[in-house]
Every structure is written in C-alpha cells, then in structure tokens.
C-alpha cells in the first residue's frame, strides 16, 4: 500500500518535472517541428509503430492487435498513458517534437492538439481506405464536423455518451413507472423524489461537469458556438439551459456538496437520478451488484430535442511519424466492425463504427441499445481551442450562482466576457 502511494507521488512529481522541463526547453530550443514526413511508397512499411493509448488498456490493446501484426508484419509498441497524465504527456511530445506514430486523443483535447499542429493531415491518404470513409461513423465525428477546414486530422475510434441513469425501484415507489422524458417531467420527478425526506435528493448534477449545461443549450435548440465559429453563450437557448440547470438547485432537488460521490449517492438512493456515461454502469455493477434490476438507463430528457454529448476518443497520426502507411493500416484495422465489437467485449468501450454499434444494440442488452440510440443524437464538445478552460469557467460560474447565491446577471455577464477573452487568447 505504502509503496503504491510512494510510487504514485513519485509519478506526480515526475510529471510536474517533465512539464517544467518541457516548458523550459521550449523557451530556448527551436523544436524540430517537421522532419522527414515522407513515406516511401516503395516496399511495405512494417513499422514498428509506436502507439499511445490512454488509460489502463496496454495489455488488452497488445492482444487486440496481435492478429494485425501476424497479418501485416507490422510490429506495435504500446504505451498506455494514465488519463490524468495525458495532457502533460502530449504537451511534452509537442515540445520535444518526439511523439508516437499513432495516438489516441480524447475528443475534448482534440481541438487543442489539432490547433497546435501535432497531428498529420490524412486527407490525401484516407481515400485508400474505404472502411474509414465518414459514412461508416456517426455524424458527430465526421471530420467536417471536427472543425479543421477540410483537413482530416483524426479518425473515430471509441465512443461514449451521456444518458439518464435512474433507480427504477425508487421512482416506482414515488409513483413514476417510467423515467422522465422531458425537461418538465425531469424537474417534476426530481422535486417529488426530494420530498422523500431529509438528506434525500432527486437528481445529482456534478458541479465539476462542464458539459451538462452545454447539452442543455443544445437540447433547447441552440448552440454555444456562433456562425462565425466563435464561442457565444449570450443566447436565449443558453439562458433557457441555465434556467433548467438552476431550477434543480433552487428547489433543493440537487445536492450542493462539491464532494458528492456520484456512485455512492446512486447506490444509497440519496440521488436516484444522474446523467452520466457508460462508465457509471460499470462502477455501479462493481460497487453494488445486488442492485441489478433496480436501476436502468434512458435517453436524455428532451426540451426541443434530446441531444446528448458525444465523448470518446479519436486516433491521429503524429505529425513527425514516418510510418503513415502502416499507421493508416492499423487505424483501418481498429475501426473494422469485428475489431470494434471485440474491443467492446474486452474493455467495455463503445465502438464508433455504425455496423458494430448496430450489431451490439441487437444483442438484447437494453442499456447498450440506449447508448447506441443516444449516440445518433449526440454532438462533440465545440472544437474551439481553449474549450476546456471556457467550459470550466462556465461550470464555476453556474456553481457560484446555484450553490453560493451569487447574482445571476453579473456572474453570467462576467463569464461571457471571460469566454470571449479566452478564445481571443488562443
């Protein structure tokens, strides 16, 4: 135990150090930005490919690509990067100019690293891979919706979305036999569940969740990016989203504790509804297997529509890679329906390939069917650089209004100004 802790602290320290060094070296060096990006069409490119994947999936990835290596002779070296170090690791790679060949980039980090020029434009080679054509994937991750003016900087890999998790036993006991499907019902059910007693709430809104208000704005029929491609929150739709968001705090149906535990609250029943991703299903099954059958998932409640978040990760080819051919073959392989289905079964990460999604949703797993359906009505976070910072400012502003009684008008106004300023800084 102690050793694990010591090691984790050492890792944190090392990360910080690497970050500092990266920042330092950047000041003095002229990073070798592009070098030898040519791929000789002569002979087969057998790599070996350096692949960076995120999270604890190293061995599984190695296993999933074993067939690929035997078929093509392309060797693969996998580095699994812990999620909390991803930004540092990628930043360091950008600074040093030494990256992998293929890299997994979360959709929320994509705008930053795409704008930084860390990823290679694949538009000239993508035609050779019919399996990678945009028609095979949801619209949300069509390259033309990922804001890179005609370039193809990344290709879809795994998906993730947000749906409504609810405790069917508690809702039924409160007189609701079906989950809420509209905003109004949502507010009504949450309020009724709150009335169960002291310490009981209706709906958990994570205060750190910096996408939920944006999903609400989409559901109200709006957007947070204007026609000019700049962020704009000063719209009637975002105001409606804020109204909806704050209503749960106004009537006390959402807890205001910043350290509320999502899984614990759901399992104990204190917060019997929460909007979250498939990972929560895994967490609930692990924390409370005895709860099976007492909870379920449903599509996001609608206002004008039921648009949810399209999260997940894309795969990109690092700008300095000299193995574009082999890299594309690997991505093509990873995006095949069979590989994607196998990956879901091994890792629980949802596919992006529509055929694989369709196949999985017909396996009789009700939750899977809901995820697959929600993915067809989902959008990625806005692909504007600095989005992460803007989104956190939004979450902070709304938390201040909802939980500490800050004035809505002035707080939002300050946030609008801040958001505009952030986008001008990037």
């Amino acid at each position, binding site marked *: 135990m102690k050793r694990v802790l010591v090691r984790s602290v050492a890792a944190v320290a090392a990360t910080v150090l690497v970050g500092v060094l990266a920042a330092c070296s950047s000041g003095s060096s002229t990073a070798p930005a592009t070098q030898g990006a040519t791929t000789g069409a002569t002979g087969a490119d057998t790599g070996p490919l350096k692949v960076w994947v995120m999270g604890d999936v190293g061995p599984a990835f190695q296993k999933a690509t074993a067939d690929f290596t035997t078929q093509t002779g392309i060797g693969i070296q996998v580095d699994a990067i812990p999620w909390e170090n991803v930004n540092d690791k990628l930043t360091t790679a950008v600074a040093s100019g030494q990256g992998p060949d293929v890299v997994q980039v979360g959709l929320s980090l994509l705008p930053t690293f795409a*704008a*930084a020029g860390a990823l290679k434009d694949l538009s000239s080679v993508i035609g050779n891979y019919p399996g990678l054509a945009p028609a095979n994937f949801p619209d949300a991750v069509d390259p033309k919706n990922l804001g890179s003016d005609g370039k193809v900087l990344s290709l879809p890999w795994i998906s993730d979305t947000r749906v409504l998790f609810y405790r069917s036993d508690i809702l039924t006991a409160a007189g609701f036999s079906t989950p809420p499907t509209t905003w109004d019902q949502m507010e009504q059910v949450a309020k009724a569940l709150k009335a169960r007693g002291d310490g009981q709430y209706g709906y958990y809104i994570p205060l750190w969740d910096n996408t939920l208000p944006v999903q609400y704005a989409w559901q109200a029929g709006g957007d947070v990016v204007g026609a000019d491609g700049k962020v704009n929150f000063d719209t009637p739709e975002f105001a409606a989203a804020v109204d909806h968001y704050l209503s749960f705090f106004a009537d006390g149906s959402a807890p205001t504790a910043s350290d509320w535990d999502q899984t614990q609250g759901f399992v104990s029943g204190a917060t019997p509804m929460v909007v979250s991703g498939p990972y929560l299903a895994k967490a609930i099954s692990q924390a409370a297997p005895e709860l099976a059958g007492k909870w379920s998932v449903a599509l996001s409640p609608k206002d004008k529509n039921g648009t949810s978040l399209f999260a997940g990760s894309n795969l990109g080819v690092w700008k300095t890679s000299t193995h574009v051919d082999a890299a594309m073959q690997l991505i093509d392989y990873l995006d095949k329906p069979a590989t994607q289905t196998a990956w879901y079964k091994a890792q629980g990460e949802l596919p992006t390939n529509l055929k694989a999604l369709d196949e999985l949703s017909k396996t009789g797993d009700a939750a899977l069917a809901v995820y697959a359906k929600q993915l067809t009505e989902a959008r990625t976070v806005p692909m504007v650089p600095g989005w992460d*910072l803007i989104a956190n400012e939004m979450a902070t502003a709304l938390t201040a209004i909802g939980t500490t009684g800050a004035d809505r008008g002035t707080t939002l106004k300050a946030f609008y100004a801040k958001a505009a300023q952030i986008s001008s800084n990037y």
Partner: protein
Amino acid sequence: MTSTSTVAPPGAAFPRVRRPRRSGPANRRHGSVVPYAFVAPAFLLLLAFGVLPILVAAVVSTTNMNISGLADSSNIRFIGAANYTRLVHDPEFWHALSNTGLFAVVGVPSILAASLAVALLLHRSDSRFARALRAFYFMPAITAIVAVALVWGYLYNSQFGLFNYLLSVVGISPVPWLSSPTVAKFSVALVAIWRATGLNIIIFLAALQGIPKEYLEAAAIDGANERQRTLRITIPLLRFAIFFVTITTVINWLQFFDEPYVLTQGGPVGATTSISLYIFQQGFRYNQFGFASAGSLVLFVIIAVVTLVQLRLRRRDVD
C-alpha cells in the same frame, strides 16, 4: 590567550608553521581556487535549476507562448507586458492572491504557536512515552501528501465522512467541510497546519536542547517560576529558531499548493485556489505558458520582497 596570537604573528612565534609558508604564492593561488571548486557544484546546480528557469520564465512571460508555440516556434510572438496587464485585470488572479494572503495570515501564526507549544511540552520529559510522542508528532511530516489528502478527504466527506458522523452523534447539523467556500478554506488550511507542525516541532526541540540548563537553574534559584522561565529565558533564546521557522513557513504558505491540489482542485468556486495552484492550472492545464510564467514571476517577486523585509526586521532586532 587570544592576545598572544594577535600580538605575535604565528610564523614568528612558532617556527614550525613556516614550512607551509614557504610555498606561499602557490598555496595562495591554490587557496583561491579550492573554495570555488567546493562551491562550484552547488552553484552550478543553483544556476541551472534556480536562476536559469527564472530567466527563462522572464523571457517566456513576454511572449504568447502556448501549445502552438511549442509545436512551431514561428507561432511565438513577443507581446511585451500584455501578459502582466491581463494578469492584473484577471479577477481570479486577485482571488487566488487574496486566498494565499489569508492562508498565510491564518497559517503562519497557527503553525508557529502549535509547534512551539507542542515542542515545549515534549521537552519537559525524556521518558519513553515522550519519545514515542515525538515520533507520533513527526508522522504527518513524513507521510505522502496523496495519502494524507485521501484520508482527510474521506474524513471531511459530506456524504459518509467521519467528522459529520461524529457531529450527528452529538446532534450537531452537518458542516459542509469542503463544499462551502468559506469553510473549505479552513478545512484545507487545517490539513496543511497539521502536516507542517511535525518538522517545526523537531526544529524547536533541537533548539530547546541547545539552551544551557544553567540559565534555567540560575533563574530558578533566583525564584523565577516556570511561566517566567519560559517567557523570559526559553522563548527569547529560541529567537533564532522562531525566526527560521517563520521565514520558511511564510515561504511555504506563499507557495501553498499540495493540499488544495489534491483535496479540492482549488474549488469550490475557486475558494481554495492558491496563487501557486492558479499558476499551475493556467500553465499546465490550459497550456498558457507565457501567461503562467508572468504569474510565477509575480509570485517570485512577492516571496523575495516578503523574505527581504523579514530579514531586514531581523537585522534591526539583532542590533
């Protein structure tokens, strides 16, 4: 005995000393190199890891350095003092600065008083129990911060935390330890105070052991009671230790980072964001290296000024 050595040059008084003198010039040259050679490694390290980064940060702070600048140096532009004006106009910067000020104002006297009091008590006995207690008080200082923060996070938790449970047992309504912007500041500071006392207790104990017993005995014979002996003899003689602890504690609070980073990530609504955490987030979370460098330079100047003022006060004190 000192007078003999000052009156007569050592060479004249003791012929034996002459031999080394014969190789005088060479020795002197040697003498001029050797100290530098000894100092050089430490000096080079200081230069490489102390001075150079500050200079680099100073240069970077005048540019728009961000992730695009890292990727391609042609994206880096010189923007003069723009980062500094932006900093001055950023309410969050002032919020973080005032948080840090509050932490220091509350934290420095607390740590000083707590560790001095514990050290004085521990010093009263040398029994096995007292020695075990010393080890006990030193524990927080050697425990990894991540472990400490995890455990305190559980203690503070609003859903299943021990503190709120204990309060509920005696019928007190739950306290939002980490959720209320005001309470969270003190909760986070408390962990830091608890952690910092360990090392300072050891420093005070060492200083206490350096106080000659004769002084206290003489005072006791003269009829001074315990309180008088502590206030008039022990504490004045601890002046240097107190000064040292004050300076290091002030600097530590100005650089306050670990506890809020692990416990609250600076929340709720930025209530526990210290200036160091603010700089870290701007730099390494949002990749605004130029802006963050400007912030770190401002922090550097603040710490330097505060420390110089303390040193100046101390000099007056000695005079």
